[in-house]
């Protein structure tokens, strides 16, 4: 089982992104589970998402404390102690950022950092900062945990073809840094 924690802010589409991964996983014959954790429900406040993917049924219904993968939709969240907390040894951080890796101050356990400028991609294609679909493309390209074509189809069906393009563009532009 892979445990993934998503970090974003209200209005960035964290919950929808997490649900789409579950859908693509289940359609591909895997088990998936997404639990959103809301704080106060308003735009801009930190939002967490807990995502699990597995070859066997997922029984636990709890938060993710020791993620294999962190998916961070807003790099201003890295100053919060919650964001990098508990990352497994050799774990992966996939982050929407324009920053250089050394400026991300990732924890020493980190195995791989994957950077992508999903904000610019979404602003160019959608006219606003809605990085969730671009980040899904980056996530799938970096991890291979769900089938890319299936995910792109689900994105197109749910959010339209421009969002599919955003995901494809992000998938093609990820930068992988092995630490």
């Amino acid at each position, binding site marked *: 089982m892979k445990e993934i924690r998503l970090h974003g802010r209200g209005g960035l589409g964290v919950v929808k992104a997490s649900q789409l991964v579950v859908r693509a996983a*289940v359609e591909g014959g895997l088990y998936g589970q997404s*639990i959103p954790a809301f704080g106060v429900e308003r735009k801009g406040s930190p939002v967490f998402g807990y995502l699990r993917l597995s070859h066997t049924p997922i029984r*636990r219904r*709890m938060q993710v404390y020791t993620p294999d993968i962190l998916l961070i939709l807003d790099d201003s969240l890295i100053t919060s102690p919650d964001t990098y907390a508990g990352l497994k040894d050799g774990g992966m951080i996939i982050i929407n950022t324009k920053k250089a890796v050394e400026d991300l101050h990732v924890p020493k356990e980190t195995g791989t950092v994957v950077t992508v400028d999903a904000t610019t991609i979404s602003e160019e294609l959608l006219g606003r900062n809605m990085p969730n679909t671009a980040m899904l493309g980056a996530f799938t390209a970096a991890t291979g945990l769900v089938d890319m074509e299936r995910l792109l189809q689900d994105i197109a069906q749910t959010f339209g073809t421009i969002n599919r393009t955003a995901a494809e563009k992000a998938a093609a532009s990820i930068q992988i840094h092995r630490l």
Partner: protein
Amino acid sequence: MSKQVVLTGNYAAAEAAALCRPDVIAAYPITPQSSVVERLAGKVYNGELDAEMIQVECEHSAMSAVQGAAAGGGRVFTATSAQGLALMYEPYFRMSTLRLPMVMALATREMTSPETVWSGQQDAMSVREAGWIQVFCESTQEIVDMIIQGYRLAEDSRVRIHVNVCYDGFYSSHLTEGVLIPDQAAVDAFLPDPAQSMKAVLDPDHPLSLDPLTAGPLLMKYRKNHLEAMEQALTVLEEIDAEFGKQFGRSYGGGIEKYRLDDADVVLVTIAGMSGTAKDAVDIARDRGIKAGLIRIRFTRPFPAARIADALAGKKAFSVIDRSCCFGWSQGPMHMEVKAALADQGIHACHFSTIGGLGGADISLDEILGVIDILEKGKNQPGERPVHWLLKD
């Protein structure tokens, strides 16, 4: 005969309710239930569901509206949480004691104060004496299956008691996973014909006064009948679960579910969604050489006391994990009731109440493993220990 979809617990509840062909749905939105009735309203609007959807001004009105509809012979549905249930209480009690059967989804939520909108089971636990049947679901699939089973149980002529299908707010209501939605034809075949099971009490051609002032001696007979029907429900719910299993390939164990219990020394007694996490904890403890097992309480009303007493007989230690408080006994309500279930045979085990997960707090795998460790260490010292709080500090 069913299709696999990916849904939140609330959307799955709405899909199941729609499959039961309700005539009338009345509801008022409240977190974390709102998306149940939003999805149903959408289905009515786009013509997928032939039902009357009444958007009322509060939960008191929601229950009152469906009460009238049920008296008119309709199959009805609503959903609520916490403060909504509290506001609904007056017609909620009247509904069950009128014995006009229905199913209501309850996305359980902590009660205010302090102000909160997050998960907890205090709302459901606070209304255990309102005459309704309460079933608590662990998974999204179980939410779907118990709403369908719920109508069958509620409308059974031996029962005719309302069913609350309860599931954790957020941890289940907003959790997304794969779920099988049965075919309409299969649900139609499983449920009774409402023309028979929900005969109209009110008929314009034969006017009558419903629920007139009733003196104590007759009222007591009604209560006695209600209690006897509740007792009968303990048997009927097991029958329905077994028959559901035959038709749909899934059954849940009736009043309780047992997990790796037969040779267990130390036992977790759980309820609703935390049970999935606790089953993982049991497996980990077994790998460490601890003989752990689990009992999941599915029905709190009627309380499956005999089955719980039988399941715990001879066990060395147990803890009941509650996501709510029993103020009068200063412990968890299910721990108090499990002790009552064991009273006749006597309690010879080490045992204690565990309380956690209030106000949206998580109940983690590590916390449950901690409970198992205490049980394992204390299993040879019988007696009740102080409440174990899953505080986060």
